[in-house]
């Protein structure tokens, strides 16, 4: 009965089976090894992409945290700044600081003559140099009449050259920095009057058309206000929804609809939320375009499903015995939830919310729809000021061809990723610290 038969019904002897199996064994083992390798290769590819992307962006962005400055002797000439000598702030604010910068440069290079060479000389410094002097004088009018060596911001072209990103053997017409200017830079280098300092401008300024003056302060503040609105709206509403669905809702059609809805919302493309924001918040309710308030509203609608789903998972992990004990002691249902279940589920809910907020921080597509893509120089001060957010700033800069902007884009990405790592790290920490096994 128990005799093995081959396909055509002829009985097989044990030895035959062994030969057949053994004959195929090498091939099968080779196939097994191959398959294993495919898996390993797939994972390595995935991990390689992670490493490659981080290396690529850090390699590009790291130099942007340093910025070239040139030391220039500045004489705060009273005849230029304050001819009447009454220290009137109005006069001081509108004085010709550019003249001081030019005079200082000419003092450094006395040999330069002629209109064009002088202009090329001025182009070594950023247009911000004059404003820097203005700021210093307005902060301290005592400076007037003094002679000081001051480090002034170099122009983007000089900065790019000093960082070694412009080939000096290139044809002069094809590079943004000319032979004569290179000569001057070499002289400055020899005299130790050119150096790289920490790029505080990046964190102090809003956006600018001049790369050396462009910063992410405005975008950071915009992101902060937007996320604040998002958190204030989505966290309470999300927690309340999770509590209602998990603890109070009767199991009927209506709650079924809500559940299906939430799951579907979690998978709706983010850009569709942008369309909703444009049509409802801006065109229907007439809220201002580009405002962090509207951005926050849109993002909170997007974040809600994430918080609700995480919140419900956290609530289900609280064992029923806790609930029964509370009810047995005579607590009302709401007291049971508020005093016992919610505090125990809170770490899980917070973890989910932080992850949702991190995702909202990196979101940009829906914000493009509601006008947060404008070129905004001023740092926003409130929820209704026109603003942009960090990812959108990255998008805006990535379109600009200058090498210095590529650098800054990568630096902005590094800042964004740092925030996201921070938030996710916080979430992991929370989970590790408060996770409870029942």
């Amino acid at each position, binding site marked *: 009965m128990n005799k093995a038969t081959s396909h055509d019904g002829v009985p097989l002897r044990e030895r035959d089976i062994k030969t057949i199996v053994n004959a195929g064994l090498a091939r099968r*083992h080779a*196939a*097994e090894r*191959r*398959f*294993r390798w*495919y*898996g390993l*290769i*797939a*994972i390595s590819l*995935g991990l390689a*992409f992670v490493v490659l*992307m981080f290396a*690529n*962006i850090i390699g590009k962005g790291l130099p942007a945290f340093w910025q070239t400055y040139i030391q220039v002797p500045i004489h705060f000439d009273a005849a230029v700044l304050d001819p009447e000598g009454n220290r009137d702030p109005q006069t001081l604010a509108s004085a010709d600081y550019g003249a001081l910068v030019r005079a200082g440069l000419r003092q450094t290079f006395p040999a330069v003559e002629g209109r064009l060479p002088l202009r090329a000389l001025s182009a070594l410094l950023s247009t911000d140099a004059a404003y820097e002097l203005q700021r210093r004088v307005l902060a301290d009018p005592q400076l007037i009449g003094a002679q000081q060596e001051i480090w002034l911001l170099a122009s983007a072209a000089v900065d790019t050259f000093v960082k070694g990103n412009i080939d000096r053997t290139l044809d002069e017409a094809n590079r943004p920095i000319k032979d004569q200017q290179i000569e001057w830079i070499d002289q400055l280098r020899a005299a130790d009057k050119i150096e790289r300092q920490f790029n505080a401008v990046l964190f102090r300024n809003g956006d600018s058309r001049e790369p050396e003056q462009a910063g992410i302060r405005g975008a950071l503040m915009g992101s902060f206000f937007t996320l604040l609105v998002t958190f204030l709206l989505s966290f309470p*509403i999300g927690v*309340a*929804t999770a509590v*209602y*669905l998990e603890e*109070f809702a009767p199991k009927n059609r209506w709650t079924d609809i*809500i559940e299906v*809805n*939430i*799951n*579907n*919302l979690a998978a*709706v*493309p*983010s*850009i*569709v939320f942008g*369309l*909703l924001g*444009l*049509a409802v918040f801006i*065109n*229907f309710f007439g809220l201002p375009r580009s405002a962090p308030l509207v951005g926050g509203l849109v993002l909170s*609608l997007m974040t*809600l499903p994430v918080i609700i789903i995480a919140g419900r998972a956290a609530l289900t992990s609280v064992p029923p015995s806790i609930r029964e004990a509370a009810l047995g002691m005579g607590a*009302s249902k*709401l007291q049971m939830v508020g005093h016992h279940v919610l505090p125990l589920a809170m770490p899980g809910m917070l973890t989910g919310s932080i992850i949702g907020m*991190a995702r909202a921080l*990196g979101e*940009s*597509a829906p914000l*493009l*729809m509601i006008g947060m*893509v404008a070129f905004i120089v001023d740092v926003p001060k409130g929820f209704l000021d026109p603003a942009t957010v960090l*990812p959108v700033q*990255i*998008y805006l800069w*990535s379109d600009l061809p200058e090498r210095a902007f590529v650098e800054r*884009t*990568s630096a902005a*990405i590094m800042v964004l*990723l740092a925030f*996201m790592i921070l938030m*996710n790290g916080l979430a992991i920490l929370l989970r590790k610290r408060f996770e409870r096994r029942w």
Partner: protein
Amino acid sequence: MQPFLLLTLLLLSAGAYYLGRRRAFAVADGHVRNLHSLPSFYGSYAALWCGLPALLVFALWAAAQPNLVVNWVVAGLPPELRDLPPDRLNLVINDLKNLVGGNFVASASDPVMVEAAERYRRLQAIGNAALWVVVLSLAIAGIAYAWRAISPALRARNRVEGVINIFLIASSTVAIFTTIGIVLSVVFESLLFFRQVPVAEFLFGLQWSPQTALRADQVGSSGAFGAVPLFAGTLLISGIAMLVAVPIGLMSALYLSEYATPKFRAFAKPALEILAGIPTVVYGFFAALTVAPLIRQIGTAVGLHVASESALAAGLVMGIMIIPFVSSLSDDVINAVPQSMRDGSYALGATKSETITRVLLPAALPGIVGSILLAISRAIGETMIVVMAAGLSANLTANPLEAVTTVTVQIVTLLTGDQEFDSPKTLAAFALGLVLFVVTLILNIIALRVVRKYREQYE
């Protein structure tokens, strides 16, 4: 001004809580057991009566006031300004608002405007002052009512819990309202669009050039709204993305769940999931500035013409982004296959890879298909990568080396920048949004259903 009012209201409510509690003790002659509810509930009861009605009035008032003020100011304008067509009138109102805000405007010297601005400012001040008076007196009236209502027999806990319950239910309907909002906003604008462009032309037309003519004799400005090239471009890029993501994601999931040591798995799984956490704008930057030039260089080296915004670059990078979706979803599915099926296969002498391909994959297939569908819907809706790395020109081509455009790219380009709200150009974006919403919704529903059904099979 208004935040300050809210703060005052908050303080008042806190005071009301304190007063309510004290009142409860007073009416109970100091014995809590005489009360129906705990004293803190009487406090909350008073706080709610103080805060809620005032807050409601505040919200309504703050929403209505700007429009009312504008209407009154416009009514006070001289007839030649008042009877301007709406869009010109809006300009005048904008000027007025700037004038009120203290900004410099061209019409600052116009006495009529200055007078109107003065009026505006006065009305606004009156409105704000009245708001303060009304809200604060309502709050105090609320406290007074609660003070009188508090008695040992008052069922304060039930009242307070009733309010909280209403808040909970209202919160849970937000998700419904969001969906309704999405559907209404997209459908409504799309209907306006389809009134100008027939549905058939939109869905099956082969020409896409949404620029409408400024002048009748302009060249290439016919305003053709055939969306097939966009659908084709979206499919092409998503297809490339899936070609990258499915093999890598699936093989990674298989390796991690079947071969990897627990230690390696503990390291590789979160590391791979980093890819899901990176913002899409970063992928877009990577695609546009690193991958696209690289592909172009390689293409030129082997003598192929590659567009600088090729579909290949965008698709490749999108594929990388989607790897963790495929891998983590398939991982769940593979882990859900019962161990007994593996054991049965091993007992028959199958190797691991044979078990995987002959037993595990067929058993997990519905779930894997579901996860792939979810990944496709993610790819179709993805925006930033294609906006930054794919082109704008609507080519109808299957060549991955050429530039194509996608639905999401067109939505972004049609809606960013200046726009009039009723031109077919902006409305077209909503029609595209409708298509996108419907397609992703269908994909998600199918995927979720498949996955759920499959899960039930083994539970």
